[in-house]
């Protein structure tokens, strides 16, 4: 299967700071997603982004498929951004592989 590596594993930010989360994957993929799992366990789909760049408010993501990585940018972080951010990659829509996640703690 596809190996998905995320960095950093843990991140502590002061409210208002910006951050970049990275996801490396071991093979060419047609399916790449970013998710946020809040402290209550709910998993939210942030971006479906197999290639290119997308933005949604303070969040944006870029995937460079040819170089097998994706980046998630969080600007002007808020305490509600805390939780775990997962990257998941797959060859198709039948199955995708989750990375181990980046645990983000935004302090007021």
């Amino acid at each position, binding site marked *: 299967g596809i190996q998905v590596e995320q960095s950093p594993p843990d991140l502590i930010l002061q409210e208002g700071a910006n951050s970049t989360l990275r996801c490396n994957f071991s093979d060419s993929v047609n399916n790449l997603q970013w998710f946020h799992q809040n402290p209550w366990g709910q998993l939210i789909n942030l971006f479906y982004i197999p290639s290119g760049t997308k933005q949604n408010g303070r969040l944006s993501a870029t995937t460079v498929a040819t170089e097998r990585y994706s980046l998630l940018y969080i600007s002007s972080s808020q305490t509600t951004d805390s939780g775990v951010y997962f990257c*998941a990659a797959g060859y198709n829509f039948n199955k995708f592989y989750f990375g*181990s996640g980046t645990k983000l703690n935004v302090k007021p």
Partner: protein
Amino acid sequence: SAVISQKPSRDICQRGTSLTIQCQVDSQVTMMFWYRQQPGQSLTLIATANQGSEATYESGFVIDKFPISRPNLTFSTLTVSNMSPEDSSIYLCSVLLQGGGYTFGSGTRLTVV
């Protein structure tokens, strides 16, 4: 996008018993999946729930332990059978959306004592 209702949200069960988790979607979807998230870990795919046929299980998961039903395009169940403390996890239902994204149910937090 689809809205998923997953029940129960949490349960505490005795070892040796079974628990059935339900996943109801508010629209017809082609693909439904069941995941397990062990404490402090990432998500692992258990199986793909196929409408009208047997589920497709991933390596390490078997039908006798995790029987799955999918009688129609909006509903699926996952049963965790003959539970042991090692089965304590969050179990999540997921569906494929039109456009390629996925959405997840709110999860079932299972504790086996």
